[in-house]
């Protein structure tokens, strides 16, 4: 037996991440609540007063980013920094790196909180942040990696526990995803265009977006579950074998499933089918985690009744099980045809986010706070109250949205016997579900109330205890494992973190490579359409305004090959139509109608009036007003840089076009303004306003194919 060593665990960094998780949880959920109410009362967008920072389109990415990267992100680091030290019997590698990691991450969040409402966005879901922030994220993630692997290297525990396998897989996969998704060419301080266009950009996006769910919201939280649940229940983990199989199967299969976000889209069928089948094969590996969690509670169920921590964990793991069953079901094409673009998807992700991530975080916080503050939880009663209000909140959130999703989808698809759409006016399918939106807002309010109770409870717990910043511990120095006769084969890799990293990297790379490489390098995957041409400079500016305002948050640009969609919107979308779309703007939700064939559908003056006040053209519409588009001067100064950047990426603008681009845009703006005048719009000086660009872009949409 080697010498016993004395050391201390760093609790201060855990507390910092825990507090940040709670604070940003409050912020992120509050923004979510505002969005929920904006859908019922469009006046809450405030844009009618000329304030452009608070529209739904700009706040939606703020909500998703705040909840994913600020709330759950800080939750992950809290869980990792606490459990990693203890599972390895070592203090974190470097306190300095810990604090660089902490403050770096908060700075990133702050940048996001400023830049997203300001309209600086790439519009790629969960990767909206501008390129300088992307660089900062990369840097901080590397700091986290060095700190984690440094701790692993100086560990006193030879074998890595299953939680740490998940942490390692999380780290490498998020790194790969983030870097590949951020392949972009800057044209200004904050603006950039992605390397890939159209269908390829869509594939890379959902490979990223889906696996952000997998490796940011799932695997690190599974790791945390493997630590906190057996600790709180004081029971051994149900099955070591199950841990091994479900870990490797999960990380290998998850990465393939991204294309299930693109079913019935212009993506080639083979990619879609891979998304479907790997999603179905994902049920068992996902449930492996749920089973190992729930079965660990065998013999401890009596305590679940009394201990709020365990209650939170049980609901979290159950929500995880439900969401990971529902996800594969939604990947079956016949289900997806109904669910996609509707609130069904929103309900689905919130079962995961509120139930799995939210409740696991709260459970862990309630477990950690009394331990770090050397005291008892201030009030078990309040914790129970938080649990019940939160659970009720999830139910009130999810059920109305499921109902809304089904209702709207069925209305979209309903035909009269004579072959006309029963609900030809899209708006009717929106006003129909507004009562359900109201119920959802109530559910969100309940959940939010619970979180506030939780903050109070933890604050009081901290106030009555004394914080233990450095927790003394002791353990023998590490002795490399000596292979024994009855050892499980997997023990081999558990003592070798670098092999663990290497094999995880291989496991998570295969799926992405098989799907993305052929799509990028085999030209026949995206059949060319001769009449499709690059956007004019003015349309390009209009497109960037569309991106800035977050229109993609509510409007898709992807007509699926269904009879109801071709009757409603026009010919279904072809992959060759998107080759100059950087970024792609297919969207994932239709709160408003699809816009892919919007060009020529309405007169310019309709768009002009509709932008200034949607309700003047469509009474009952819940779209925000955009009067500032008619006031803002159109800034064309970046056009030459944009044209040059796009040409470098492959858009065939002729040499020297960048010098003519501004004049070209002004000439086209003049034409739009003249047309508006002829249609009776009397505003002065229209030709220099942003409205000209957005109208030019909307009128171009989907028209090339008709030439």
């Amino acid at each position, binding site marked *: 037996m080697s010498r016993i060593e004395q050391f201390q665990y760093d609790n201060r960094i855990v507390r910092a991440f825990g507090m940040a998780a709670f604070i940003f949880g409050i912020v992120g959920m509050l923004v979510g609540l505002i969005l929920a109410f904006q859908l019922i009362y469009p006046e809450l967008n405030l844009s009618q007063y000329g304030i452009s920072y608070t529209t739904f389109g700009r706040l939606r990415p703020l909500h998703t980013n705040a909840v994913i990267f600020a709330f759950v992100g800080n939750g992950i680091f809290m869980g990792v920094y606490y459990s990693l030290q203890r599972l390895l019997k070592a203090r974190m590698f470097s306190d300095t790196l810990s604090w660089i990691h902490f403050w770096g991450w908060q700075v990133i969040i702050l940048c996001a909180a400023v830049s997203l409402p300001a309209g600086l966005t790439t519009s790629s879901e969960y990767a909206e942040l501008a390129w300088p922030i992307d660089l900062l994220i990369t840097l901080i993630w590397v700091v986290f990696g060095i700190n984690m692997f440094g701790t692993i290297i100086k560990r006193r525990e030879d074998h890595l526990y299953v939680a740490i396998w998940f942490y390692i897989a999380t780290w490498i996969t998020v790194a790969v995803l983030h870097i590949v998704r951020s392949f972009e060419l800057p044209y200004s301080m904050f603006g950039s265009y992605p390397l890939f266009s159209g269908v390829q950009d869509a594939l890379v996006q959902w490979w990223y977006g889906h696996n952000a769910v997998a490796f940011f919201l799932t695997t690190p939280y599974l790791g945390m579950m493997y630590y906190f649940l057996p600790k709180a229940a004081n029971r*051994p983990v149900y099955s070591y074998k199950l841990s091994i199989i479900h870990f490797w199967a999960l990380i290998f299969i998850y990465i393939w499933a991204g294309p299930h976000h693109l079913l019935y889209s212009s993506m080639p069928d083979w990619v879609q*089918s891979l998304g479907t089948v790997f999603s179905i*094969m994902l049920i068992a590996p996902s449930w492996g985690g749920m089973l190992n969690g729930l079965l660990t509670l065998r013999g401890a169920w009596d305590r679940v009744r009394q201990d709020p921590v365990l209650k939170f964990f049980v609901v979290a793991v159950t929500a995880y099980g439900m969401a990971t*069953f529902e996800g594969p079901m939604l990947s079956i094409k016949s289900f997806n045809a109904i669910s996609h673009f509707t609130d069904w998807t929103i309900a689905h992700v919130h079962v995961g986010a509120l139930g799995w991530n939210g409740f696991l975080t709260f459970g862990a916080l309630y477990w950690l706070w009394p331990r770090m503050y050397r005291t008892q939880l201030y009030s078990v009663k309040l914790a129970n109250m938080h649990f019940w209000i939160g659970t009720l909140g999830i139910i009130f959130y999810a059920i109305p949205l499921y109902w809304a999703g089904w209702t709207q989808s069925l209305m979209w698809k309903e035909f009269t016997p004579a072959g006309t759409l029963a609900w030809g006016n899209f708006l009717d399918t929106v006003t129909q579900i507004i009562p359900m939106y109201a119920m959802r807002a109530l559910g969100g309010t309940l959940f939010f109330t619970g979180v506030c109770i939780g903050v109070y409870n933890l604050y009081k717990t901290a106030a009555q205890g004394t914080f233990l910043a450095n927790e003394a511990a002791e353990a023998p120095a590490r002795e490399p494992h000596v292979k024994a006769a009855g050892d499980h084969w997997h023990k081999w890799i558990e003592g070798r973190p670098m092999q663990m990293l290497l094999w995880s990297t291989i496991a998570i790379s295969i799926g992405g490579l098989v799907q993305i490489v052929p799509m990028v390098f085999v030209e026949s995957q995206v059949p060319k359409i001769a009449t499709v041409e690059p956007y004019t400079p003015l349309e390009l500016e209009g497109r960037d305004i569309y991106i800035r305002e977050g229109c993609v948050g509510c409007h898709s640009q992807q007509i699926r090959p269904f009879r109801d969609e071709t009757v409603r919107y026009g010919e279904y979308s072809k992959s060759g139509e998107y080759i100059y779309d950087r970024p792609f703007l297919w969207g994932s939700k239709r709160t408003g109608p699809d816009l892919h064939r919007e060009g020529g559908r309405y007169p310019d003056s309709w768009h002009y009036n509709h932008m200034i006040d949607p309700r003047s053209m469509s009474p009952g519409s819940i779209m925000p007003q955009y009067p500032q588009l008619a006031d803002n001067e159109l800034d064309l100064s970046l056009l030459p840089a944009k044209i040059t950047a796009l040409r470098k990426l492959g858009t065939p603008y002729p040499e020297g076009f960048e010098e003519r681009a501004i004049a070209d845009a002004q000439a086209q703006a003049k034409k739009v303004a003249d047309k508006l005048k002829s249609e009776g719009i009397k505003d002065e000086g229209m030709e220099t306003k942003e409205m000209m660009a957005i109208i030019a872009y909307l009128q171009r949409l989907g028209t090339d194919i008709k030439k």
Partner: protein
Amino acid sequence: MKFAKYLFMLLLLAGAAPAWSQAATTAAPDSAASQLPQIMAYILTIAGAALFIVAMVYVVKVNQFLYKRVLDLEASKSGVKLPQEQMAGAEVEADSFWASMRKKYWEDAVPIEREGEILSHHDFDGIRELDNRLPPWWVNMFIITIVWAVAYMFYYHWGGDGPSSADEYNMEVEEAKKQEAIALAGMADAVDESNVTALTDAGALGEGQTIFKNVCAACHGQGGEGTVGPNMTDEYWIHGGGIKNVFKTIKYGVPEKGMIAWQSQLSASDMQKVASYILTLQGTNPPNPKEPQGVIWKEEAAAPTDTIPATETPAEGK
């Protein structure tokens, strides 16, 4: 564990549901059932099947219970002492086939009392691990999904004749065309621009008004005063007044000027109702009228004709 069993069964049923729902819809092609969207068929099928499973499990349980009661009664009547301890304690031996099947394919956890046998010697910060067998039902589910995945890829890509997304679309449209033809043939609704007449009964005009507010008012104003689109209340018409011309403009639209073709969104009778309603707006003088566009239309001058007058004046715009 129970809920997991049922969820597993539901998964299997979800696979079978398309076949059943298809069978259900082909069985009743022209009833309301064919309109029943696919998803409802799914949900009903799965819910029904789940109910069926629960009912069957219940029946089996009741049966077992009654059987035991009967045995007990028989025993007490005849005075034979039933080997109680054997039934409870040695159940495994007594029912070895089913017990072993269950162990092999369904559930095989080491009981909590004996879990010391499979408990790891090592602990991680106090966490120990059991080495329970993989739950057999879970392994089976995994295998089934893998087999399903291979079959799916084979059917759609590797040699089977599964339809592509585009094929599915074409089939859907073909089928719809047939259904439409049948529906239209049996309908008095078959008005078109050659035989349409202006309706005058209040009911039809009321429906026309509702449609107008929903779809036309956006461009032509709530009172038909005209905003983006032309004024409907004056006697000037760009594409001809009178029921036949108005019907025709609604039906086919004027795409180059932004007027949508409504024929795919409104039925013929709806277009007739809204066209009739529009004619009633003549001379209503709503506030903020748009300036007149087109030419004066006199009903008697242009008798029954379905041609658009050549006097259209594009210079005035819409």
